[in-house]
C-alpha cells in the first residue's frame, strides 16, 4: 500500500528520470534541480555536463568516502515555482548536495528549499552576491565568480594595459548580473588615478534599437578610450553590432557572459573587444589542464564548451568533494565548515576562497580574451589589486 501511494505520488509530481531513492548509506546523492527545458537550459546544461565529468572522475577513482556518487535530477522548467518543486523533489530523493540553476533568480527557490531542509546548495554559475549566505543562507554557495569582479578586472586591466583614461559606461538594466558588472566597474574606477567617466547611459536588453544611446556616445567631444558594456545575451550582440555599425571603434569591455565564438558571426570582423574568462575554450589557455578538460568535455558531449560557463560546474563538484573528503562525512554543517576553511584552494580554473562571510569569489585570476578580426584568443591574465569589499557588493 505504501509503495502504491508513493508510486502514485511520484507519478503525479512527475519527477524526472530518477525515482526517489531511499536514503541509502551505500552511496552519496547529488541532486540537480536545474533547468532541462526553457531558456535557462542553455546555461545550466553545459555546467551540469562539466559537473558530471568531475563526478565520473571521482567515481572512477573509487568514489567519495568510498561510496559511489549517484545523481538525481528534477527539471525547473526555467520557472521559479517549478524550481521550488524541483528542489523539494531532489531533497525527497535524498540528495546530500542540491545543485541549483545558474541564475540566482531561477535557482533561489530550490536553494531556499534546500536551506530549509538543512542541505548544502550550490548555484551552478550564479554571479550575484545573493547566491550564497546573503540571499539564501549559511549552507548556500556559488561555484562562479562575482560579476563585480569582472567589471573591476576589466576596468583595471584596460587602465594598465590599454592606457584607457576616459571611460564610458553603458548599462542594460535587465538583470542583476549586468548591474553587478557595472557596480564592480564603479568601485574600481575612483581607485585609478586620472581615470574618469565621460558619460553613461542605460538601455533595456529587449530594446529594438539603441540608436538614441549610440547618438549620445557620438555626441561626445571625443570617442572614449573604452566603453564598459554591462549587458548579456541576447541584447549584447545587438548592442555591439549597433555600436560598431555606427562607426564607434573604441575598445568594448564586457563581463564573462559574452565569452564564446558562437555569436561572432553576427558582427563580422569584430575587433577591439575584451572579455574576462576563468579558462579559455579556444585551446590556448596557459594552463594545460584546461585544454585537457576541454577534450574530456568534447568526448562527453560531442563538442567543445561553447563558453567559459561550463567550468564552474566542474569546480563545484571539485571543491565540494574535497570538503566532504576532509570532513569525512556529507553532513551539511561539517562540509560547510571545511568549505569555509578554503583559502586560495587551487582548482583547474583558478584559486577558490570561501569564508564565513562570503560563499562566493570576490577576487580571482582572470584570463583576458581579446577578439581581433573576428578571432578570439587569450592575450593576458589579470588579478585585481584588491578584492571587491562586501560593502561595494551590497550597496
Amino acid at each position, binding site marked *: 500500500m505504501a509503495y502504491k501511494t508513493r508510486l502514485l505520488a511520484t507519478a503525479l509530481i512527475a519527477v524526472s528520470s530518477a525515482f526517489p531513492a531511499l536514503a541509502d548509506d551505500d552511496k552519496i546523492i547529488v541532486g540537480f534541480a536545474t533547468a532541462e527545458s526553457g531558456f535557462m537550459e542553455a546555461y545550466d546544461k553545459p555546467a551540469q555536463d562539466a559537473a558530471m565529468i568531475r563526478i565520473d572522475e571521482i567515481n572512477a577513482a573509487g568514489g567519495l568516502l568510498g561510496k559511489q556518487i549517484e545523481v538525481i535530477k528534477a527539471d525547473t522548467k526555467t520557472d521559479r515555482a517549478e524550481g521550488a518543486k524541483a528542489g523539494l523533489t531532489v531533497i525527497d530523493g535524498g540528495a546530500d548536495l542540491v545543485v541549483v540553476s545558474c541564475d540566482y533568480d531561477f535557482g533561489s527557490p530550490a536553494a531556499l528549499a534546500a536551506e530549509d531542509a538543512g542541505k548544502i546548495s550550490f548555484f551552478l554559475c550564479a554571479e550575484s552576491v545573493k547566491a550564497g549566505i546573503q540571499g539564501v543562507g549559511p549552507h548556500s554557495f556559488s561555484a562562479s565568480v562575482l560579476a563585480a569582479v569582472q567589471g573591476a578586472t576589466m576596468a583595471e586591466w584596460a587602465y594598465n594595459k590599454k592606457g584607457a583614461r576616459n571611460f564610458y559606461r553603458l548599462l542594460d538594466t535587465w538583470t542583476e548580473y549586468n548591474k553587478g558588472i557595472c557596480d564592480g566597474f564603479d568601485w574600481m574606477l575612483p581607485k585609478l588615478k586620472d581615470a574618469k567617466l565621460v558619460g553613461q547611459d542605460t538601455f533595456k536588453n*529587449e530594446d529594438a*534599437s539603441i540608436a538614441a544611446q549610440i547618438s549620445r556616445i557620438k555626441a561626445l567631444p571625443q570617442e572614449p578610450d573604452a566603453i564598459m558594456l554591462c549587458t548579456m545575451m*541576447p541584447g549584447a550582440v545587438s548592442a555591439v553590432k549597433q555600436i560598431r555599425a555606427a562607426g564607434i571603434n573604441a575598445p568594448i569591455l564586457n563581463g564573462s557572459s559574452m565569452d564564446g565564438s558562437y555569436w561572432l558571426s553576427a558582427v563580422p570582423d569584430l575587433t577591439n573587444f575584451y572579455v574576462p574568462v576563468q579558462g579559455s575554450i579556444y585551446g590556448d589557455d596557459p594552463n594545460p589542464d584546461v585544454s585537457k578538460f576541454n577534450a574530456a568535455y568534447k568526448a562527453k558531449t560531442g563538442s567543445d564548451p561553447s563558453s567559459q560557463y561550463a567550468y564552474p560546474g566542474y569546480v563545484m563538484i571539485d571543491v565540494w568533494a574535497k570538503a566532504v573528503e576532509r570532513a569525512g562525512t556529507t553532513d551539511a554543517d561539517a562540509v560547510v565548515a571545511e568549505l569555509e576553511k578554503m583559502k586560495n584552494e587551487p582548482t583547474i580554473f583558478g584559486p577558490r576562497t570561501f569564508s564565513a562571510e562570503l560563499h562566493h569569489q570576490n577576487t580571482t585570476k582572470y584570463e583576458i580574451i581579446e577578439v581581433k578580426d573576428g578571432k578570439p584568443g587569450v592575450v593576458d591574465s589579470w588579478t585585481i589589486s584588491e578584492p571587491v569589499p562586501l560593502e561595494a557588493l551590497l550597496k
Partner: protein
Amino acid sequence: MLQIVFDALTLGSLYALGALGIALIFGVMRLVNFAHGDVIAFCVFALLWPSVDAVAIVFAGNLPWYLLIPFVVLVGAGLSVLCEIVVFRRFRDASPATMMIASFALGFVIRYFLLMLFTSRPKSISLLPALSQPVEIFGARLPLLQLITIVTTLLVLAGLTIFLRRTRFGLEMRAAAENFAMARMLGVRANRVIMLAFALSGALAGAIALIFGSQTGTADIQMGAAIMLMAFIATVIGGLGSLGGAVLAGFLLGAASVVMQVVLPVDARPFRDAFVYGAVILVLLFRPQGLLVARGTKERV
C-alpha cells in the same frame, strides 16, 4: 537633432510595420493576433538549420539578398496563412476574448516548437552584413541599416497604400475591414480576403524579421514579443481598424521612446517605459477611440 529624428524614425519604423500587421488582421476579423510576434521570430529562425548547438548553422541565410528577401517574406506569409487555415478559421464566430486567447495559445505553440528545434540559446546570424557600414547624410553619420530601415518602411507603406487604393483586392479588403458582413453580402469572398490579410500581415512580419535580424544579428525566440507589444498598443491608440492610425501611432511611440531616452536624466532613464506607458494612458483617456477613428468600425470587444 537630425540624429534624433533618424533614431526616432528607425524605432518607429519597426513599430509601425508591426502595428500594420496587427491592424490588417484586426480589420477583417476583429482578432488581436498575439501570435504575430512569434511569426516574426519564426521568420528569423527559418534562415537557420535546426540544431541544438550554440553555433548557428546558417541555411537559407546564405542566400544572396535578392533571394533572401523574398524567401523570408514568403515564409512569413506562408506561416501566417497556415495559422489562419488551421486555427483561426475555426474561430470566426467566437468572441474577441476567445480569439485572443486562441492566438496566444498558437503563439505559445510556435515558440515552443522553435525552442524544441533550436533550444532557447539566442543564435547569432550575420544577415546582410553589407548594411552594417556607416554612411554620412546631411552631416549625420548613420549606420546604413538605419537608413535602409526607414526607406524600406516608407516603401512598404507606399506599396501597401497603392495596393489598397488601386487594386480590386485592396478595395475588397478596405470594404471588408469596415463592414465585413456587408461586404460578404456584396459577393466579397470572406475566406479569400481574410487569407490575403493574413498573408500581408505575415509578409510584414517577414520584413520586420529581416530588419530586426540584420540590426541585432541575433535570432532569439523571444525577439518578436517586445515589438508585438508596442505594435499592439500602437494599433489601439491609432484607432482600431484604421491602418493609417496604426502607422502614425507606431511612429509616435518610437519617437516618444527615443525622445524620453534623450531628455530624461540618467537616473530616470531606466523608468523610460513607465513614462511611455503613462503617455499611452493619457492618449487613451483623451481619445478612447484612437487617434484616427475608422468610420463605421463597431467595437465588439
